């Protein structure tokens, strides 16, 4: 396995009496889209600040592409793009002027700058309004400009903190599309968000932070298995005349992880959609099938479980 792009070892940050980040051991690999989840105050932003060298850790260490953010912050900042929560631009400057400033700060040679700005504005869909003052931009436009700004330095890693907050559904689609684009370009993306459905769509792996500790890490499917104690699907079967042998028969169906019965309802926990098989089993046993409801477990349920537990 190649060296992880982002790695923290017992990373800790203490503010007075509050431990914001508690011995965090995180590993993010190259090219993946990592979702960083957690309730407010869990320590997500603090961890991100430590990864960028914007805050000193109390103890422990972090490394980004092999560089230490405390010892070589400039090297880290050269290859990491940061999209903070509540990003802002200079409102009386145009988008182009703002991007030019970012290019200047990154030492991009003047000959390349204009072409790059044109290409990025095109990519995020702001070519036509490139010369309008950012103060006149809508929220969605400003967020897209943020993505253009972050890509100015051709980063290897991009850290996004709530990039879709306050955006309309169309804007959200655009931003998620841009995130997927970044992944396709080989950029490692760290997405810190509360929007579980969005995270579920674009992220390959997810880490859940609660009270400074990493309580779960892995792909959504794997987390589902761990959290729900089994499958990611839940099928509710309502029968009219239940037979006692029905429960045994259902348990024998491949894909079923557990069955709970109460009165006329069977709750079947399974790892795939086995409604046709269940229907046949119910009918074959002589019971009458009234209704079958299927639910897919998502991050929301997993999240709630961990949140409740911690």
């Amino acid at each position, binding site marked *: 396995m190649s060296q992880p792009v982002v790695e923290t070892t017992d990373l800790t940050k203490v503010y007075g009496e509050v431990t914001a980040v508690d011995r965090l051991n995180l590993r993010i690999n190259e090219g993946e889209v990592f979702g960083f989840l957690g309730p407010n105050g869990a320590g997500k932003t603090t961890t991100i600040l430590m990864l960028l060298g914007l805050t000193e850790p109390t103890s422990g260490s972090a490394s980004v592409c092999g560089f230490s953010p405390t010892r070589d912050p400039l090297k880290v900042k050269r290859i990491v*793009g940061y999209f903070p929560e509540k990003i802002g631009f200079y*409102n009386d400057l145009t988008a182009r002027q703002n991007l030019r*400033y970012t290019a200047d700060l990154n030492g991009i040679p003047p000959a390349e700058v204009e072409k790059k700005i044109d290409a990025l504005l095109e990519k995020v869909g702001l070519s036509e309004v490139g010369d309008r003052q950012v103060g006149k931009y809508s929220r969605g436009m400003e967020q897209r400009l943020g993505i253009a700004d972050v890509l100015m330095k051709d980063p290897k890693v991009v850290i996004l903190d709530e990039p879709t907050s306050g955006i309309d559904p169309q804007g959200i689609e655009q931003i998620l599309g841009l995130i997927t684009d970044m992944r396709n370009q080989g950029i490692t993306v760290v997405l810190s968000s509360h929007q579980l459905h969005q995270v579920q769509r674009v992220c390959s792996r997810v880490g859940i932070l609660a009270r400074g500790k990493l309580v779960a890490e892995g792909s959504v499917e794997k987390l589902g298995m761990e959290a729900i104690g089994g499958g990611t699907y839940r099928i509710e079967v309502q029968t009219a005349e239940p037979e006692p042998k029905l429960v045994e028969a259902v348990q024998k169906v491949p894909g079923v992880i557990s069955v709970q019965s109460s009165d006329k309802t069977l709750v079947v926990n399974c790892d795939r959609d086995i409604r046709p098989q269940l229907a046949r089993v119910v009918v074959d046993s002589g019971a009458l099938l009234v209704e079958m409801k299927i639910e897919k477990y998502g991050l929301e349920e997993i999240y709630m479980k961990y949140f409740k537990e911690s």
Partner: protein
Amino acid sequence: MRGMMAVLRKELADHFASKRFIILFLLIYLAGIAAIYVAGQNIRNEVSESTRFVFLRLFIVSGGQMPPFPFFMSFFVPIIGIALGFDAMNSERASGNLSRLLSQPLYRDALINAKFIAGVVVIAVLVTSIVAIVSGLGLRMLGIAPNGEEVFRLLLFIIITVIYGAFWLGLAIMFSIFFERTAVSALASIALWVFVFFFVPVIATSVANAVVPVDQNSKIDVLVRNEEFRQAISRLSPATLYGESIQVMLMPELGSASAALMLISIYVSGMVPTPLPISQSLTIVWPQLVALIALTAVCFAIGYVRFMREEIRST
């Protein structure tokens, strides 16, 4: 260095293109030109044929009801410094730019250094241009050109004024780092300026009069002690330090930093002093200059240390 130059370029461009600059520009120009114009009218009454430094007189003489040029400088230059610095850091924070800026590959101190340097450059441009314009006006009105020593003294006047402006700039930047809201940092800076400009002289006089009381029958040495005491207290204020420095620079006859004590010594000894060379004038006000530079450095340093150590969160 590269990062600081990039920020400096942007800050200078912002300053010179801003409405704020135009307002400051107009303010100081109108005040300065008005002072000089009126002074030019009255100068014939103030100088005689034997006065050596006529051109410099133009900058010192007051025209009737109008206070002299140095008064305007001492009044407006702090305003310029404050206006350029009061929102240096807190506006970046408020607009959401600070996190984004500091995630670029530049040293954090490049930001604060560039803002300070940009402010000093703008102050220098304003002060130099007003002195140049006023000199031009003076040349036209008086028909006398300044001699080499006068030009040099004027140059020193510009430098000292810029240092004074830099003090207020550093102070305002420090407040902008400590206070989140630009309105609060602006008010704090202006409150301090009002205190320095209006209250310190009053406090100095009252304390001096309380410690060394004088009345009409007081002897000379009591008067002198009272004056020395008053001066010592008023020298705590940067306005006094500035005022004394430029007075000595613009009036070569002044042999001491204290005009009042000088007058007393002339009265007592009956000797009219000869004008001093520049090096001597500089020596007299060297303590004032050093104190001014030190104050500027301290204010800037306090802001610097706080900014470097603070945690930058966008939320």
